[in-house]
């Protein structure tokens, strides 16, 4: 039963790898040069695709070359994968939780930035003892971003303003607010002209997991704990029951006496806090000096991650790890095989395409009686 559920994502991933492999191979000039000799061309194509994927593996999981001096060094790529996955897990959870409650949170990007601002500010401007400093920075991130997200919920509950529009706009607000903030004396690093905040103090930074050389840090486990907590919240608590009820049928929930307005507001608060915690992990874990580009595309990739995971909190962890690996490995792939990084983005897109269209995979493989699960975003614009 469990295995059957995994069949579809696995096939989707396989299909995406296959399709991208074709793309990698047949966009390569050396492969195309062999147009006249089909056999050689095919061989070369296989070699090219294989080489690209091998580079991807070396860049994301384990690099035998690095392992020659010190074995643990071989896991440097894996550590990078964890670093890339950590904020994605949290922003992914943010979007997934909102999905479960029938809300489409496009605002993880802005909430991520709000959290990063909070963590950075507490991180560099206060002097506190070790553990307390980290916790204080995290708390500031959660409060800043929680309110940033909660505002969206409140607006929707009070006035019916659609969360998609409000969150998209708030993403801009957050990004430009950050840019302005980095030009103020409070946030601009002394002696710098370019938007760069001071580094957060050592006392606030998250401890590394495998020694100083590998960047993997405690943030990954905090993200895992958050995933566990959200799973528990959704499946065991009265709050989660209401969240899911409103997400599945808000009219029936209302008729049964559940306050949809309160659910909307609290879900968006928690979703915001999760994304903001992602921002804190980035600041406290791997990028202690905040720049204008701190948000990267964590908030937008989160939507894809949540879709891939079908809004399941545990699935979100795995989807984020996959994306983290693609992100970390993509760089190596580009460096060592001349395959452009853009193709990694194509792989990501194809994975999601095949996952989001289970009917397509079912048709390709002629599967019957495989649970496709509910389409998570089927509610669309007016959900």
């Amino acid at each position: 039963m469990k295995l059957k559920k995994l069949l579809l994502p696995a096939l989707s991933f396989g299909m995406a790898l296959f399709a991208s492999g074709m793309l990698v191979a047949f966009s390569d000039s050396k492969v195309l040069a062999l147009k006249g000799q089909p056999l050689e061309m095919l061989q070369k194509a296989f070699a090219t695709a294989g080489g690209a994927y091998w580079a991807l593996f070396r860049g994301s999981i384990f690099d035998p070359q690095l392992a020659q001096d010190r074995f643990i060094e071989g896991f440097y790529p894996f550590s990078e994968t964890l670093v890339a996955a950590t904020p994605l897990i949290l922003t992914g959870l943010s979007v997934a939780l909102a999905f479960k409650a029938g809300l489409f949170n496009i605002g993880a990007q802005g909430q991520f930035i709000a959290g990063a601002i909070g963590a950075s500010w507490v991180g560099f401007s206060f002097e506190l003892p070790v553990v307390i400093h980290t916790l204080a920075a995290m708390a500031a991130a959660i409060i800043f971003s929680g309110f940033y997200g909660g505002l969206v919920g409140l607006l929707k509950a009070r006035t019916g303003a659609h969360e998609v529009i409000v969150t998209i706009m708030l993403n801009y607000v957050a990004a430009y607010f950050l840019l302005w903030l980095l030009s103020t004396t409070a946030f601009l690093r002394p002696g710098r002209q370019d938007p760069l905040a001071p580094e957060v103090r050592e006392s606030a930074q998250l401890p590394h997991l495998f020694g100083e050389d590998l960047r993997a840090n405690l943030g990954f486990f905090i993200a895992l704990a958050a995933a566990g907590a959200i799973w528990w919240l959704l499946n065991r608590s009265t709050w989660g029951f209401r969240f899911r009820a409103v997400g599945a049928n808000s009219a029936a929930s209302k008729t049964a006496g559940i306050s949809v307005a309160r659910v909307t507001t609290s879900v968006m608060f928690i979703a915001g806090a999760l994304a903001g915690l992602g921002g804190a992990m980035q600041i406290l874990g791997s990028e202690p000096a905040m720049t204008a580009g701190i948000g990267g595309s964590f908030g937008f990739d989160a939507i894809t991650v949540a879709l891939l995971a079908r809004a399941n909190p545990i699935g979100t962890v795995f989807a984020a790890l996959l994306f983290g690996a693609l992100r970390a490995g993509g760089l190596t792939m580009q460096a060592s095989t001349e395959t452009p990084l853009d193709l990694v983005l194509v792989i990501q897109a194809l994975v999601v395409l095949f996952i989001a269209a289970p009917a397509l995979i079912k048709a390709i493989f002629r599967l019957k009686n495989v649970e496709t699960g509910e389409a998570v975003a089927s509610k669309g614009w007016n959900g």
Partner: protein
Amino acid sequence: MSLELRGITKRFGPLTANDAIDLTVGDGEIHAILGENGAGKSTLMNVVYGLLQPDEGSISVDGKEIKIESPLDALAAGIGMVHQHFMLIPVFTVAENIVLGHEKTKRLGILDLESARKEILRVSAEYNFEIDPDALVENLPVGLQQRVEIIRALIYDAKVLILDEPTAVLTPQETDELLRNMKKLKAKGTSIVFITHKLREVKEAADKITIIRRGKVVGTASPSASQEELASLMVGRPVSLDVDKNPAKLGGVTLAVSNLTISDHTGRSLVKNVSFEVRAGEILAVAGVQGNGQSELAESIVGLQEHVTGKIELEGKDITKASVRDALHAGIAFVPESREEDGLISSFSIEENLILDLHDLPPYAKGPVISQSVVSTQAEKLVKEFDIRAQSAKDSASSLSGGNKQKVVLARELSRPVKLVVASQPTRGLDVGSIEFVHERIITERDAGRAVLLFSTELDEVSSLADRIAVMYRGEFIAIVPADTSREELGLLMAGVKR
């Protein structure tokens, strides 16, 4: 023209909706197809009309086998259909609706409505339908809209007319009118296939009756058969159509509503200055044609309407402005009109649906944690008490039949301490067995001293359950009359005619 179906089988996945159905409709005959909701009547007719393709079987017209692949083929073969939900565009005129899809043009592509208008007037005069071709459809009463559909079929030369549950939306008077018109059509040689689950109408209008149960033809009957015989054939077991009930033992006033007015967000009033009382131990039934403010009135009592003025009191306590939760917990059981939309969360399990209202209260929740074992035990108990037929209480509510869904709603609403039951169309779309169950349960609640406010558009239901009947027309209580008021009088009141 005669229509013959042979061995029609239609499957949807594992479900066989029509199982080798044979049916012959003779020339100039009114042939009733009687069956419960979900028996496969509509599927069969959609096959005949070309909206669905049968997996097996053949269709012949006048002894010649034909293939019907689309409604256009059906029309060409002389088969017309009036759907349960009318296929009319409200903002178009009658004539525009009728030419829709068959537009003729004059030179330069100008729409030729004149010939359609003439045709409409001709057919309308022939059958005394009194239809103005230039009237906007949205301004016509439902009964007239239905005539527009019939005229459309006749203009396109339908010799066999399929009427799918045509009386569901009509007042009793409009129903009688329709039945008379059906006989007129028959006299002029049109065959009619009349799909319904209402026994009285079948007996009144049909020449032949075919009964369908679970996708199969289970028998034919003549209109002289008794209602009980027809019902037993339809359900597959003996059925009692009468509701047994003792005289009401009236208690104090449970619900007092005074000067209640409800408006929509544009400020248009949907319920106007309504006042009434329901006492403990009685059933006040609100009759009326759908869409006269009943839904809004029902919802307002549990706080689901926003723009409400006036006063609603439950045992003397003002609950006009109470939240839904407070109203429910003050002792109101609410059975909403739409089970699917408002009553249940279909992707949730039966267990979860049973605690939608109580999930955060002991014993179901300990603090913020839902206690799964208590939820399951309680669900088992309710499943047994309310005879909910499901493989497991962990199955999703969407797997249940309509009757069992309604039982889940009832079970949940009656599992709280209740003083007042507000039930909106509680038997709509249910099979006869479930209707019996719901009726008995409502009587049980009344006999246990609860006040019951029942909203129903089915006159038979109103008459058999009510202790008093209120008739609602255009948002007002036009009259409150005793339970033994005649059908005719109720019908007139429903049409807004005061004595």
